[in-house]
C-alpha cells in the first residue's frame, strides 16, 4: 500500500497516543515507586529490610506461595492430562469451571473459604478444628487462598501444548511396553516442559502478590499471619517516615519480583521455539 503524507501523520499520531497513554498509566507511576523507595539512599531501605516483621512477612509469603505452586503444579498437570486425553461426563463443564478462579473477586474467594473453613462457624472448619487443624487465621488458609486464585494458570499453559503434541509418541511408547509412569516421565513431561515452567512462573508471581483473599483468611497479624502484601498495606497506613519507607521497600521488592518473572516468561518464548 502506498504511504501518503496523511497516512504517515495518522501512524505517528497513533504511536504517540499509545506511548503517551502507557507512559502516564504505567511507566511513570511504576518508575516513581522505585524513585520514592530509594529517595533517602540505600541505608533506610536496608534498615527496613532488617525489621523482624518484614523478614517474617516475606518468609511467610514465600512458603505459602511455594506450597500453593506445588499443589497447583501437580493438580494442574493432572487435570490437564484428564481434560485433553480422556473423555468423561462433565468434561466440558470442568474445563469451563477451572477458569472460574480468575474471574472471582479475591474478596469473594476469602469470604467463601471463611464460610467453609472457619473454626467457629465453618461447615468443615469446626470438625477440622476439633481434629486439631486450624485453617482460617493460620498458614493452611493462606495457602488455600493463594492456591485458589492461581489455580488456572498452570492448566491454561499446559492444555494447549498437550493438545498440540497429540498422542502418537505416547501411544508408540505404550506399545513398546513402557508403563504409564515411564511414558509420562520420558515422553509427555519433556514435551510440555516449557509450557509447564511458564505456568509455574506465572503462578508464583500471582501467588506472591495475592492480597484480598489472603487478607480475609489470614487476619493479618504481624509476626503470625501477615504476608508481604498485607505488610505494605499496614505500614503505608501508619504514620512516620520509617513505616512509609518500609511500605515502599516491600512494595518495591514485590514489584521487582513481578517484573523479573515477566521478563523470564517473555524470554522463555524463543526458548520454547528452539526446543522444537
Amino acid at each position, binding site marked *: 500500500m502506498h504511504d501518503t503524507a496523511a497516512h504517515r501523520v495518522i501512524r505517528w499520531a497513533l504511536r504517540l497516543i499509545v506511548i503517551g497513554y502507557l507512559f502516564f498509566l504505567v511507566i511513570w507511576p511504576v518508575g516513581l515507586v522505585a524513585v520514592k523507595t530509594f529517595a533517602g539512599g540505600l541505608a533506610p531501605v536496608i534498615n527496613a529490610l532488617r525489621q523482624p516483621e518484614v523478614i517474617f512477612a516475606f518468609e511467610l509469603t514465600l512458603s505459602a506461595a511455594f506450597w500453593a505452586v506445588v499443589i497447583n503444579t501437580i493438580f494442574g498437570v493432572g487435570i490437564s492430562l484428564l481434560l485433553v486425553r480422556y473423555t468423561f461426563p462433565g468434561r466440558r463443564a470442568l474445563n469451563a469451571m477451572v477458569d472460574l478462579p480468575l474471574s472471582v473477586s479475591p474478596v469473594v474467594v476469602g469470604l467463601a473459604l471463611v*464460610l467453609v473453613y472457619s473454626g467457629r462457624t465453618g461447615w468443615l472448619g469446626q470438625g477440622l478444628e476439633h481434629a486439631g487443624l486450624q485453617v482460617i487465621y493460620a498458614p493452611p488458609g493462606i495457602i488455600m487462598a493463594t492456591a485458589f486464585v492461581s489455580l488456572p494458570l498452570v492448566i491454561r499453559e499446559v492444555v494447549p501444548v498437550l493438545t498440540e503434541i497429540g498422542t502418537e509418541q505416547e501411544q508408540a511408547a505404550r506399545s513398546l511396553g513402557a508403563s504409564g509412569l515411564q511414558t509420562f516421565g520420558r515422553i509427555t513431561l519433556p514435551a510440555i516442559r516449557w509450557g509447564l515452567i511458564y505456568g509455574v512462573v506465572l503462578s508464583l508471581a500471582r501467588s506472591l502478590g495475592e492480597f484480598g483473599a489472603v487478607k480475609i483468611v489470614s487476619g493479618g497479624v504481624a509476626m503470625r499471619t501477615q504476608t508481604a502484601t498485607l505488610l505494605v498495606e499496614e505500614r503505608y497506613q501508619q504514620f512516620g517516615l520509617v513505616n512509609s519507607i518500609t511500605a515502599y521497600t516491600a512494595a518495591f521488592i514485590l514489584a521487582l519480583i513481578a517484573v523479573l518473572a515477566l521478563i523470564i516468561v517473555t524470554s522463555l518464548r524463543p526458548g520454547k521455539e528452539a526446543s522444537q
Partner: protein
Amino acid sequence: MTPGAGTVDAQPLAPAPPAGAATTGGPGKRHRLPRARSATALTPVSGLGLGIALTWFSLLVLIPLTAVLIQASAGGWSAYWDALTSSQTLAALKLTVGQAVLVTAINVVMGTAIAWVLVRDQFPGKQLLEVVIDIPFALPTIVAGLVLLSLYGPSGPLGVNWANTRVAVFLAFLFVTLPFIVRSVQPVLLELEQEVEEAAASLGASRFTTFRLVILPSLAPAITSGAALSFCRAISEYGSLVLLSGNLPYSTEVASVRIMSSVEGDHLTAAAALASILLVVALIVIITLDVVSRRVARYA
C-alpha cells in the same frame, strides 16, 4: 506475561487460533479442548486421578463458592433483597458497574489501538512496551495502588491529588484491566492476512473503509471477549483501591470493598448477598466466553 503475544515475532506454539479464541496464556485468552477423537475413555488409574482432582477442586473451589450462595439465602428472600437494596450497597454497586462500563469502553478503543501499534508499527523500544503492557497483570494489586498513588496522589509530581476521589477508582480500574483487550486482539491481528486489506485498497477502498469493513469485523470476537474479561476484572477489583480510593461510603466505596467491610463487621449474610451478585456475573462471563469461542471456532 502473556504467551501468545510475548513478542510479536514469536508465533504461538499451537496452530493459528481462530478469531477470539487465542490458544495461549495470560489475560484475555481462552483454551479450547480438542475434539474427542484423540481422547480415550477413563482407565482405572486415570479414573482414580479424576476422583482425587475433583475432590480437591470441590474442597477448594466448588464447596466454598456454593457456601457463599447458601449463606446469601440464609435469611430468606426478603433479607437477601434488603441486603442488596440498602442504599449504601446500591451506591457501591452503581459506582462499580458505572466505572467498569466506562473503563471497558475506553479499553475497547485504547486496547485495540495499542494492539494495532504493537503489531503493525515498527519503532525502537517497541519490545519495552510489550513488557509494560503486562506489568499491571503481574504487579500485586496493593502495589498497583501504591504505584498510582505516587503519581496521582498527594505530593505527586503532576500536582494533582485524586486520592480518595472517584477518579482514583477510575484510574485503578483502568490500570488493572490494561492487558485484557490488547492481549486478546494482538494474536488475531497477527494472523490477519494483509492480502485482504491490499485487495480492498486496490479496489479503491480508503484505509478507513478497509479498517471498518475488513479489519474490524475480524477483530470483533477478540474485542468482545477481551471486553468481557476486562469488565469482570474491574467489578471484582479490590487490592489496588485499598490505599488509593479511601473507601468512603456513598462516594468511593466499590462492591468488593463493601463486601470486605461487611466481613470485618461479621455481617456474613450481607457480605454473601453482594458476593453472590459478583459471582453470578463472573459465571455469566465464563459461560458467554465458552459459547462465543465455540461458535467462532465452528465458523472460522
